[in-house]
């Protein structure tokens, strides 16, 4: 700024010197005055320019701050590289939160918990004394079961589940609470093996190990009720093997203290041998007939070498009326299921034909004079006792057609021979209609006409059932209930 001032003064003086023609006093004063005015003008212009320069500098600073603010949102923000890292860290945290929400179980809790309720409203044309049913004649409402399901992983090597069932006693109506299943199953055995231990439904046949509320119809088929005794519940061990083949084959063997509807042991305090256990097995396979048509087939066997007087001593009756005691249980089964499951719309349309044939070949000790009856004055062998085998057959076959996401209907045919007297036979015909409002809420209407052979002495009867089943919470019985 000083150099600029000096240059300005020199320029002004030179101009003045050039313009002075003579050395007169008046002129000198005039020239001094002009010089003074020019100095003042120069200083004023200089001040104005300096002010302009300062103003421009302020504007420039302000603009630079605005640009910096646009690049970094906060004055304390770290450099750009650190910001990218922060964004990545934030993204990773979001991903972790998303991943943390991915639970493997469908239930809200661990273990998964669910409840199934099942109510049966019915009308029977005859009373229990004429049908052999455990339900009375006429109108009837029956809370068949309230089932609590709890399942989860035990550790990396096993899972476990418990099914507790409260059902009304068929006679008294009082609730009976019991553990229907409580089992542990391995998840990491080598060689494609799975071991199940505890109380569970042993794998025999096609529908023997399916819970009542998951059957395609209201009631368990007569053959399963007669030969297995309801669901195939057992306390024992079961080993399943998936052979390493391209074809699906499943092999199951098991051993248990009871199987199905065994009566309580007649001699619970006695010494028991291994042969008093139940042994069972099942071999099944599957074929894709076409992409939409499937065939599943299996054979099953159940053997109890010594039934330990199942049902009690002389509690059974032979065809000729002689009292007898079961001492060996033999049961074989053959089953298949043909299904039409269209890949495109199987939620809306499907067809299933399932059939199971059972052959019972139990061995009995016949006691014509009833001398073994504990109520006899002197219970014991009298020499008239003899062994007898009774072969009997049972079969059920059903067709279910689904034509809508909510609607399906079908027909069940039942036939069974009494395992103690094969002349005593029962036939049942049951059309049924199912309305599934959702996966968890289902109504089923079924009519059943039951007829009997003359040997049974029972009249035909008719029944109408309305079943209402519902599920809350988690519910899955896994692969076997597919």
């Amino acid at each position, binding site marked *: 700024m000083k150099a600029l001032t000096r240059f300005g003064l020199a320029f002004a003086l030179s101009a003045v010197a050039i313009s002075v023609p003579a050395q007169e006093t008046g002129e000198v004063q005039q020239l001094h005055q002009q010089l003074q005015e020019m100095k003042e003008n120069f200083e004023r212009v200089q001040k104005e320019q300096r002010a302009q320069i300062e103003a421009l500098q302020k504007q420039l600073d302000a603009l630079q701050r605005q640009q910096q603010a646009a690049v970094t949102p906060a004055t304390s923000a770290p450099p750009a590289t650190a910001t990218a890292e922060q964004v990545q860290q934030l993204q990773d945290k979001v991903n972790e939160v998303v991943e943390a929400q991915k639970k493997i179980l469908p239930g809200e809790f661990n273990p998964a918990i669910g409840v199934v309720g099942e109510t049966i409203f019915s009308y029977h044309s005859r009373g229990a004394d004429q049908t052999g049913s455990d339900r009375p004649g006429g109108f009837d409402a029956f809370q068949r079961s309230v089932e609590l399901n709890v399942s989860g992983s035990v550790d990396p090597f096993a899972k476990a589940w418990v099914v507790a069932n409260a059902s009304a006693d068929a006679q008294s109506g009082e609730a009976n609470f019991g553990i229907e299943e409580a089992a542990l199953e391995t*998840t990491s055995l080598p060689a494609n093996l799975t071991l199940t231990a505890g109380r569970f439904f042993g794998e025999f046949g096609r529908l023997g190990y399916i819970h009542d509320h998951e059957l395609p119809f209201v009631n368990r088929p007569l053959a399963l009720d007669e030969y297995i005794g309801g669901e195939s519940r057992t306390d024992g061990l079961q080993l399943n093997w998936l052979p390493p083949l391209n074809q*699906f084959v499943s092999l199951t063997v098991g051993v248990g203290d009871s199987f199905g509807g065994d009566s309580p042991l007649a001699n619970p305090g006695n010494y028991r041998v291994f042969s008093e256990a139940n042994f069972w097995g099942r071999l099944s*396979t599957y074929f894709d007939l076409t992409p939409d048509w499937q065939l599943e087939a299996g054979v099953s066997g159940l053997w109890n070498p010594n039934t330990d007087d199942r049902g009690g001593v002389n509690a059974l009756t032979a065809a000729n009326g002689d009292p007898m005691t079961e001492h060996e249980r033999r049961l074989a089964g053959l089953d298949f299921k043909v299904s039409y499951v269209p*890949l495109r719309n199987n*939620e809306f349309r499907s067809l299933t034909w399932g059939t199971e044939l059972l052959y019972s070949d139990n061995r009995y000790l016949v006691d014509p004079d009833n001398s073994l009856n504990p109520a006899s004055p002197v219970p014991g062998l009298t020499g008239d006792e003899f062994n007898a085998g009774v072969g009997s057959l049972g079969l059920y076959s059903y067709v279910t057609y689904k034509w809508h996401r909510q609607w399906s209907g079908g027909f069940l045919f039942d036939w069974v021979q009494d395992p103690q007297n094969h002349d005593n036979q029962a036939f049942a015909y049951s059309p049924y209609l199912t309305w599934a409002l*959702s996966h968890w809420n289902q109504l089923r209407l079924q009519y059943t006409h039951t007829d009997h052979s003359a040997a049974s002495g029972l009249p035909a009867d008719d029944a109408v059932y309305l079943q209402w089943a519902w599920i809350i919470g988690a519910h899955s019985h896994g692969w076997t209930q597919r």
Partner: protein
Amino acid sequence: MKMKCLRSLVWAAVAAVTLTGWSAQAAPIRIVTTLTDLADFARNVGGDHVEVFSLATGIEDTHGVPMKPSFLPRLNRADLLLLIGFGCEHAFLPALIEASKNPRIEYGHPGYVDCSQGIDPVGVPKSTDHSQGDVHPYGNPHYLLDPVLARTAVSNICAALVQNFPQYAADFTRNRDAYLAQLDAKIAAWEQAAAVLKGVKFVSYHEHWPYFAKRFGLDYIGTIELKPGIDPTPRHIEELVNEMKAQHVPIVVREPQFPEKVPALIAKQTGATLVKLPIMPGGVPHTGTYIEMMDYLIRTMVGAVAK
């Protein structure tokens, strides 16, 4: 004698070469995927190193693949299981995994590959109560209908292959980059073609399309289903028709696995165009690959708008 020796040597050499070649010929990596999009990605990334089997053929509902026992031998020997995630396969996959007796593909093991890793889901429900239908607790699982999110799934598959089979890492990475470049070029073309779809309103049978709508700027009005997995009631249909009329919704989307009757009725009552859109490759003819399917989706929607 010399000839005999020479012949023996030749046979020995042939045997040695054959045996060496046999042992050097590594067994292919066995991949099972739940849906066909993932199978297409796996083939593109895995190349010659992989043998891929998809449980779905493409025409199924993504939530309703039948649980066939014939799947078990495949799953039993699988090295990797690729799934969509977000609970998409909850109705069939957990039981299949359990029955397959293959610890490699169980949840938490390296062979269990959830391809939704890194994807921010939309539609995460506040409640999983069944009054809301068969909701997906982790969010809408149909993210592969957004091709940009499909890139993430491709990268996840590559990462899983590299993690499990690092000896082929270079091949997998090269294949992934090549496929993503191809996908990127298609994405640019799809976005350009779909410019006319911006702001276009539509309804669909099931809630398959939120990611698709978001990517291409469509306005997703609602579903024909009352709730996920729950069939529509007459009242719901009436309300939907009124809403569509009020908002002048021009398109009704029917996914091919759902019946046509109700969507056709709604389209007729509202004057909207009914279109059939696949939800995975193979859902309709000529959509065998993911890119072909996306081509079909864009082409069909643009065609519907042009009507």
